[in-house]
C-alpha cells in the first residue's frame, strides 16, 4: 500500500505529452513513498501506447482497451477497477481538460480526498503538496492526513520521462458497463483557423487584459504594424470578442515559438505561459512588478502600457492612434 497509480492521456490516436510527465511525477512520488509506479492506459491503441510509455521508472502498465476516444464514464469505471485491484496510496491524474472531467468524480466515488493542480509534493512523512493560489501570486502547501488520496498534477510542471523501461504490461480485465454511460462523444472540431497563423510569426506583439477596452486595441495594432510584427493576445481579449480566436496564445489557443514575444498588459497566467514559454526572447510590459510574466521574461518594463507603447510607436516613426 505504498504504490502510485498514474493515469495517462491520449487524443485522436496519440499520447499527449502530459502522459510522459505523469511518469516523472509518479516516479518521484513513488520513490518518496517507497512503492511502485503503475500506469493506466484506457483508450486508443492501448498496446502501442503501452510500448511508448515503457520508459525508465515505470514498474507496471495496465491497459483497458475501451474505445477510440476519451469518455469520462469509461475512464471512471476503468480507474475504479484498477484502483480496486491495486489499492494504491496515490492516484495521480493529469490536471488537463479531460482530467478535470473525471478526477473529481473518481475521487468522489472512491471516497478519496482530492487536491488539484499540484505543482510539487513531498512524501517524506505525511504527504505535503504544493499548489498555487490567487493566480500564482502565492503558493500554498496542504497536508493530506489519509491512507489513500487523489491528486491532479499540473501539465508541463514535471519533465517528460525518457529512457527505456522494463515494465510488465498487462491487460486489465474490466467490463465497461455501456448502459451506465450518460454522455456520447460525437466528434471533434478544430477552431481557431482563419487568415493569420500566429505560429508562423517571427515577432509577436501580444496583448492582454491590461489594454482595458476594445477601443484601445488600435494602439497595439499600430505597434505591430510599425514593427512588422503579428498581433496575438491572451485569452480574455478573445473571450471579449476584441480579437478573433486564431490570435489566442495559450493552453486552449496556439502554442507559439517566435524569435521575439512582446507581452503587453499580460500577467502571465499558467494557461497563457503554456503557449509562449518556448519563445526565444520574451519582453514584458506590465504595471505590476510581481506579475508572473516577469519570471519568464528576458527583458521587462514596469510601467503603464499607455505611456510606453505610444513612445515605442513614435520611436519607429509611427503615429499613435487616438484611443
Amino acid at each position, binding site marked *: 500500500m505504498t504504490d502510485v497509480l498514474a493515469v495517462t492521456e491520449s487524443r485522436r490516436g496519440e499520447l499527449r505529452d502530459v502522459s510522459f510527465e505523469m511518469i516523472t511525477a509518479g516516479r518521484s512520488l513513488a520513490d518518496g513513498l517507497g512503492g511502485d509506479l503503475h500506469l493506466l492506459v484506457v483508450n486508443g491503441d492501448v498496446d502501442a501506447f503501452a510500448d511508448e510509455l515503457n520508459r525508465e521508472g515505470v514498474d507496471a502498465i495496465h491497459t483497458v482497451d475501451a474505445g477510440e476516444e476519451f469518455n469520462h464514464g469509461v475512464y471512471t469505471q476503468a480507474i475504479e477497477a484498477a484502483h480496486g485491484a491495486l489499492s494504491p496510496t496515490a492516484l495521480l491524474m493529469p490536471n488537463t481538460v479531460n482530467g478535470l472531467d473525471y478526477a473529481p468524480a473518481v475521487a468522489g466515488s472512491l471516497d478519496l480526498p482530492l487536491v488539484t493542480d499540484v505543482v510539487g509534493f513531498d512524501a517524506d512523512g505525511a504527504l505535503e503538496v504544493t499548489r498555487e493560489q490567487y493566480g500564482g501570486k502565492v503558493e500554498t502547501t496542504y497536508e493530506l492526513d489519509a491512507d489513500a488520496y487523489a491528486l491532479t498534477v499540473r501539465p508541463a510542471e514535471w519533465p517528460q520521462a525518457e529512457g527505456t523501461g522494463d515494465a510488465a504490461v498487462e491487460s486489465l480485465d474490466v467490463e465497461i458497463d455501456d448502459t451506465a454511460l450518460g454522455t456520447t*462523444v460525437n466528434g471533434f472540431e478544430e477552431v481557431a483557423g482563419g487568415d493569420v497563423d500566429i505560429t508562423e510569426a517571427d515577432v509577436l506583439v501580444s496583448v492582454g487584459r491590461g489594454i482595458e477596452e476594445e477601443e484601445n486595441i488600435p494602439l497595439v495594432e499600430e505597434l505591430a504594424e510599425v514593427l512588422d510584427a503579428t498581433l496575438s493576445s491572451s485569452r480574455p481579449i478573445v473571450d471579449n470578442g476584441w480579437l478573433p480566436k486564431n490570435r489566442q496564445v495559450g493552453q486552449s489557443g496556439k502554442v507559439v515559438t517566435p524569435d521575439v514575444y512582446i507581452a503587453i498588459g499580460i500577467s502571465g497566467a499558467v494557461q497563457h505561459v503554456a503557449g509562449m514559454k518556448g519563445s526565444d526572447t520574451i519582453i514584458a510590459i506590465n504595471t505590476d512588478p510581481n506579475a508572473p510574466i516577469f519570471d519568464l521574461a528576458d527583458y521587462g518594463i514596469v510601467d503603464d502600457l499607455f505611456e510606453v507603447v505610444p513612445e515605442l510607436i513614435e520611436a519607429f516613426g509611427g503615429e499613435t492612434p487616438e484611443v
Partner: protein
Amino acid sequence: MKILVTVKEVAEVEDEFEISGLDVDDRYLDYDLNEWDDYAVEEAVQISEENDDVEVVTVTIGPERSEETIRMALAKGADRALRVWDDDVEAAEFLDANTKAELLSAVVEAEEPDLVLTGVQSNDDSYGATGVALAERVDYEWAAVVNALDVEDDTAHVHRELEGGIEELTDVELPAVMTIQTGINEPRYASLRGIRQAQRKELDVQGLADLGFDADVLETPVERTSMYEPESESDATIWEGSAEETAGELATFLREQGVVEG
C-alpha cells in the same frame, strides 16, 4: 425547467500585499463575482429568456458580505438566490472541493434542478473540481469545460473546449452539471432596472442544519499548512526610467536584434 447556478464571490489580491497566517491579509483582498460564474449566470439567463417557464436559482457558499455579489447575479436576471452559511462554516479554516460539493449536493437534492451550471474554476482557489464532484454526489451526468451549450428536451448538446484549439462535441443526458468556460457568451451588465428589481428578489440563507448536516461535514483530511510568496524566478533585465527612456531602450534592443530595420 429549473437551472441552478453556483455563484462564488472570489477574492482578488492587490499588487502589493501581505500574508497573515494561512491567507492573504484581508486588507489586500478585493471581492467580486467569479469571472467563470458570470458566464454561467449569463448562460442560464439566456436559456430562461429563450424558453418558457425556466426558473434560474443561484446558490452561493459565502458570508453575508457575498450578498452584494449575489444581488449582482439577481440583477442580471436570476430569479432567486440561496446562500449557505452559518457560524460553523465561518469557523472552518477552509473548504476543499469535496466539502463544497457535499454542501451543494443537499441544495441540488432539495431544488431538483434539470441543469446545474458552475464556473470551470474560481479565480482565487482554482480547484476546478467542485462541479464534477457535485455531479457524482447527486448522480447527475456532467460535462467539464463547456464553451457551447444547446439544451433540447432531455439532452444537452455541448462543446467541450480541449487544449490546442480543439473542441469535443458531446451529448449529455439531463439532469446534468456543466462547468462553464469563459467566452461561451457575452455576460451582460446589470441594468438599473435589474439592480432595483434584485433588491426585492428572494435571497434565502441556510445553515448546515437546514441542509441536514452537522458540523462533521466540514471535516476534511486536507489541511492547509502554509502560504507564502514564491521566490521570484525572474532574471529579467528591467529597463528603468521614464516611458520615453524605457521605450528607447526597447527600441534600441529591437533594432540591434535585427527585429526591425532602420
